[in-house]
């Protein structure tokens, strides 16, 4: 109790103690007085309220059973509501009506041809607004209207967020299978931007871009929507520094527990290892892997893992992360395509940390926090990857340099505005209805090391099944 500065004299100490006690008593008396005052005020208020409302009605008591009483907050809410003559929540009421005709739009120029349709820039004749018009491909499917197109429309209509492209309406053409999505127009896609730029983005700009992608994704996941085809060419940007997630052709609702799903999703270069190994139960972690790939691409302007085929993709992944072992990825052995996987007997020494940090040499300009985020996103084990929410809270986004304000984001000459966008070299997402290949990964490790030919993944030679 006594400090070095206290007077050692017991008498002085006694006086100090006495003063302390008196102070404490005063404090209590004051608190008591305050409490009484409050109670009086409350009573007066109640009296006034009941005078206004008449005697308290029976409805104030919500339950006969004291145990079944709603919690205090609820009671307070309800009382408040009653005093305000029960303001009831009104649900948003929509309407439905038939599609408009595509002739309401004047087509200006072609933008690009994606995996699911042709996109062109168009003007809404009645309002003069510039929009993007995306024609859905309906290749005489034997099952009628393609479920991918339906899901794209369904998810886009429900996913209203500032970082998700805005679907204005669906319009139709003269023929039964002419269907167009009318969306907000954006000048760029991230892939084209990266291709055109002389220098990669600044660290502060990378954070601005990444925060928006992850922010949009966090919303999608919270609405039970998986995107399943995140890549730089599906991220649109306007000249106000705003980023929008687009192309929901692969998106779908998921559940808990996850339903059985096709592993033929996500463009190869952005595809998570569990998909490549044939998992038919997977979750939002596959989108987080794609975010990791996009992060890497933002740093260097080049796609991070450019596999030539599934087997090559797996070997490129393992070359970056090191091969999996039962410690870093428990249970990967039970995935369908892992049976043929022969790993080097000298399994990599279990480095510190789970997930293990990626080699610093691959990302020389990244801070430690950045490398830790990247290593988390590109963790082989899906369970080790951060969720979108955790990602947003990562210290990488809090350290200097801070994310650049959107208004300060550089603008770029528009590719989509005037002419056709350059054809991308990114491969496309797998087509629906394809059979999932049974891949033979026997040669991912082992065999003679070779040069940088098609069959050789970085450092590991392959035998194609």
């Amino acid at each position, binding site marked *: 109790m006594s400090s070095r500065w206290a007077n050692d004299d017991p008498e002085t100490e006694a006086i100090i103690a006495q003063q302390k006690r008196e102070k404490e008593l005063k404090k209590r008396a004051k608190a008591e007085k305050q409490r009484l005052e409050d109670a009086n005020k409350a009573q007066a208020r109640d009296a006034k309220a009941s005078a206004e409302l008449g005697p308290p009605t*029976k*409805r*104030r*008591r*919500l*339950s*006969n*059973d004291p145990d*079944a009483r709603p919690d205090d907050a609820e009671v307070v809410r*309800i009382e408040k*509501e009653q005093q305000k003559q*029960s303001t*009831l*929540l*009104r*649900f*948003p*009421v*929509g*309407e*439905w*009506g*038939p*599609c408009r005709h595509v002739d309401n739009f004047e087509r200006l120029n072609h933008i690009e041809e994606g995996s699911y349709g042709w996109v062109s820039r168009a003007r809404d004749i009645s309002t003069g607004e510039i929009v993007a018009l995306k024609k859905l491909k309906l290749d005489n499917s*034997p*099952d*009628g*209207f393609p*479920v991918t197109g*339906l*899901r794209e*429309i*369904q998810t886009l*209509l*429900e996913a*209203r*967020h500032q970082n998700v492209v805005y679907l204005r*309406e*669906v319009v*139709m053409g003269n023929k*039964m*299978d002419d*269907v167009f999505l009318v969306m907000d127009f954006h000048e760029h896609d991230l892939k084209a931007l990266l291709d055109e730029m002389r220098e990669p983005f600044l660290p502060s700009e990378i954070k601005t871009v990444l925060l928006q992608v992850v922010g949009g994704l966090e919303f999608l996941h919270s*609405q039970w929507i998986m995107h399943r085809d995140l890549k730089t060419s599906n991220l649109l940007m306007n000249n106000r520094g705003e980023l929008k997630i687009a192309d929901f052709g692969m998106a779908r609702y998921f*559940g808990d527990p996850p*339903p059985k799903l096709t592993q033929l999703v996500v463009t190869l270069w952005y595809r998570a290892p569990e998909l490549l190994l044939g998992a038919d139960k997977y979750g939002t972690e596959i989108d987080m892997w794609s975010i990791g790939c996009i992060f890497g691409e933002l740093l260097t302007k080049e796609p991070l893992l450019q596999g030539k085929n599934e087997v090559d993709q797996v070997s490129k992944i393992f070359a970056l992360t090191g091969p999996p072992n039962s410690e870093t990825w428990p249970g990967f052995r039970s995935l369908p395509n892992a049976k043929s996987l022969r790993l080097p007997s000298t399994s990599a020494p279990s480095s510190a940390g789970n997930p293990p940090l990626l080699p610093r040499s691959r990302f020389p300009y990244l801070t430690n926090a950045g490398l830790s985020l990247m290593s988390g996103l590109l963790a082989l084990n899906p369970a080790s990857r951060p969720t979108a929410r955790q990602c947003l809270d990562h210290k990488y986004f809090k350290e200097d340099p801070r994310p650049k304000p959107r208004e300060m984001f550089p603008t770029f000459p528009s590719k989509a505005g005037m002419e056709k966008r350059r054809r991308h070299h990114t491969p496309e997402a797998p087509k629906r209805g394809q059979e999932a290949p049974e891949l033979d990964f026997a040669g991912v490790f082992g065999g003679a090391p070779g040069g940088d030919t098609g069959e050789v993944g970085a450092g590991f030679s392959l035998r194609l099944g």
Partner: protein
Amino acid sequence: MAPNGLKHLSNALATPDQLSNSSSSIDNVPSDLETSIRCAGAQLTQAAGILLHLSQDIIAQAIVMFTRFWLGADGGSLRIYSVKDVSAAALYLTAKLSFQPTSPRSVLNVYTFLLSQDASPLWFVRQRRAPETPPSPETYILSEGGYQSARLILLRTETVILRTFGFDTHVALPHTIALTYLQTLGVTKPAVAQRVIQHLNAALLSPQLLYVTHQPNALAVAAIYLASREEEVKLVDGEWWEVFDVDREELGFLVVGMKSTEGFMRAEVSRWKNKAIPMVVDEVDAEIERRRMMEEGE
């Protein structure tokens, strides 16, 4: 503006204009006939969904879509689209978007059986009394040629439905909401929950079109109100429905509506005792012609 997340719990509702002007009424279909056909179509959808082993949420969503389709001047007309085709396409489309997709062949097989005048278990389809001998398979099995042409109609109708809704296929249901409300109210008796679900499923057939005129939370509250009365379970005192954002007037209307469904169905069964309810365009035309002749004869 309500928060975004509420979209999952709410529906697009019919406008007054859509409710007072149907495409069929413009085409001179008497409104009582339209009501009978629409209700029979909803039952047909329900029966087909059961035979296809689809879960009730898919079936209910399909019936709501089916119901919406006929509303408003921009909706479908019974003299252009056959009820059976719209029912099949709505069910096929809803299943396609769900976790339980089904094939065109399965759907068409089931509809062929349900619409067979000799074999159908549906009261408004089968005209003949149950024969001593079981009906011959030809009367309820879809031939390969029949399948090919029926498939084209199914897929075409699917696109027609999508266009009628501007491709908005969202349907929120009251069933799960009702169970959450029951838990909130501390009702644990299974019979109440069962009765609630029964009311909600019966309301899918209601002539007042409750699912396209009221939000799911209101349907849930009304079903709970009715079920707890019928099962004699006492709920909390006070106007508990306000906690679930339903006012007394709306609750009253819905309770009356839900209670009237049974009487309406009984009346339908006796009205159509001696003849089948028209399920295709030709039959609708014939029924209208028959009524016209009767009127002229009088």
